[in-house]
């Protein structure tokens, strides 16, 4: 049975920030992927970065060290 599991979702104020996230992630091998913003969250940009909660620390550390701008960090249940 598919079950939803908690994911960290990083939202951005603009598409530029979201694109910067994706590019940096690709270059530095940061875990996660780009997904459309889930309906339970509102954000400036319709794309967000998502990672299963297990990778949360790795992600937040990378956000800091890469100096990436973001709007917010949420926890959402996703399949």
């Amino acid at each position, binding site marked *: *049975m598919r079950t939803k599991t908690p994911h960290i979702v990083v939202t951005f104020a603009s598409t530029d920030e979201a694109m910067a996230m994706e590019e940096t992630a690709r270059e530095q091998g940061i875990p996660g992927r780009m*997904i459309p913003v*889930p309906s339970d969250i509102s954000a400036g940009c319709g794309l967000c970065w998502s990672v299963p909660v297990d990778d949360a620390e790795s992600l937040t550390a990378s956000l800091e060290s890469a100096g990436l701008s973001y709007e917010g960090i949420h926890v959402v249940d996703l399949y």
Partner: protein
Amino acid sequence: MDTIDARGQECPLPVVRAKKALDKIPSGTLEVLVDNETSVGNLQKLAKSLGCTSQREDREEGVFAVIIEKGEGAQEVAADSPDAFTPDEPNLSDAVVVISSETMGVGDDKLGKNLMKAFIFSLSQQDKLPKTVLFYNGGVHWTVEGSEALDDLHALADAGVEVMSCGTCLKYYDLESKLAVGEITNMYVIAEKQMTAGVVVRP
């Protein structure tokens, strides 16, 4: 004897897979491995409803094997017979999704690719999934090696959704050997699936 390894898969997936395999052969033996009693019972009911015999073998570590024998001339029982059996697929709707392009919408192709990728992801997030997703023409680029939608398509296939790509199109784009998820299909099936769908969704 063919074996279907359905360990780790919950009902009705083992039954759906067994039925598909049995429908394809005129006769033969099929072994299905499962790890729960519910599936054992349902596989035996399926065998009976298809006019086959079945035998159960309890293997070690909570694994069960159901060995189904289909004889020549095995006949599926009538739909109104007490032995008829259709597994519920509570997670699947009767919708058929048709993906006929690498892009979603008309305007900008780069945006279009990102939109289609987001659509396929969103599909995987639905509580009720489509019964079938058909890929043809440019759409076959999504089911081959290198596609950015493979993880989501695998998730759909694992949940019991039929993922089917047109063989003629794969050949045309020289991608036949690169199919990475789902099966190859043909125009008869593509027409039939759409005709018998409750709704056809074309992103």
